[in-house]
């Protein structure tokens, strides 16, 4: 097995945490917004588009996490 060193290992863990935690936060946000969007659409079908847009808004958090993870990954030798 190749020895990658502690520093590289820590970068890899940091990249994993950045992605994982931001995705978790996005999921928590989407839980309530998604439920509300389904509720609003059930009463009024025209709300589907608006609901969908609002539901995916917390996804930006996951994207930020992904960007940070990629930046960290690029630092890896």
């Amino acid at each position, binding site marked *: 097995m190749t020895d990658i060193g502690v520093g590289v290992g820590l970068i890899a863990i940091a990249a994993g945490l950045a992605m994982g935690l931001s995705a978790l936060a996005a999921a928590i946000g989407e*839980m*309530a*917004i998604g*439920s509300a969007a*389904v*509720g*609003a659409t059930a*009463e009024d079908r025209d*709300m589907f588009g608006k609901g969908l847009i609002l539901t995916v808004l917390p996804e930006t958090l996951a994207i930020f996490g992904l960007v940070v993870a990629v930046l960290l990954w690029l630092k890896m030798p």
Partner: protein
Amino acid sequence: MKINPFRSEGRAKVAIRHFAYFNARVLAMRAKLLPKETYPKFLQMGIPEIARSLGESEYKTEIEQLGQKYRGVDLVEYSLNRNLATTFHGLIEKAQGELQSLLMDYMRYYDLENITTALRGKLSGISDEDVEEAIIPAGSLTDAQINKLIEASYDDTMEILRKMGYDEAVDLITDLPLPEVEDHLIKMYYANLLEKTSGGSKNMKMFHHFISIDIDFMNLINFLRLKRDNTPSTKVMEYMMPGGAQLPHKKLKELADLDMEEILTRIEGLAYFREHQGELTGEKDSLTALEASLLKFQLNYAVREARQNPLSILVVLSYILAKRVEVANIRNIVRGKEGDLPTELIRNQLVL
């Protein structure tokens, strides 16, 4: 086991995601309530035009269903009752856990109204059909139970009520006149709601607070009516409901000895009216306008509190209040028009 007719069994706490779902549905329903501009238009219309206009709104199904059988005021009136019942049953069906149980208990108010309507019908010899039309089946009683109550003889009704758990009410009916029994039942209903919601989850506490505000406004309206009729203060206090949020018994007792103008000035010091000083005293000459104004304040207060707590039970409670106000407004307009009341007088009764 003894049945408590005022209370359903306790249920599980409700997850935030359910509140997000449920409250979004409620808010979408609130958006479909008639806008304020509709009422001045209704005031200019005749009763058939109002019925037609309602037939194009959220009352479409009921107007279409009942349109074959009824016309004019009757059509509007029964459609309103049926729509109210369908809407409130729909809310209960959509809710879950503790929220559902609280809503069910809150709607039991209609059970009491329906029972007293059925009894009043029997005592005054009104036909079963007319009684049936005055019923608002929004409570926990099923259609079969309500029909049984209406069709039964007076003595059988007592037996049915005992089976439903209203033993105390039946005992009172033999001793007291019906209005006092009604008053007693409503006091029991509120006492049960307050007892059930004292302590417990955050939503239980919010519900408790909402009920206390409800009691405050109900007491205020009854208080002002009784004072206007120059009822002695001891008698006034007999009709007051205990458990108000800002107007406990002690405060009401102090107010009972004052004159009307002073009472209104003191009332305006309460948090409900703080931002609208002078509005209540401005309405002091007309009790109808004063009552409408009080209801408007209650509704605005409930809506404001609901906005501050968007993931709470307050959202649905403020919607229920708004729906009741809408139905009362339409009812006042059509009844006023039927009785040829001047438009200005009808307008005074509206909560806008």
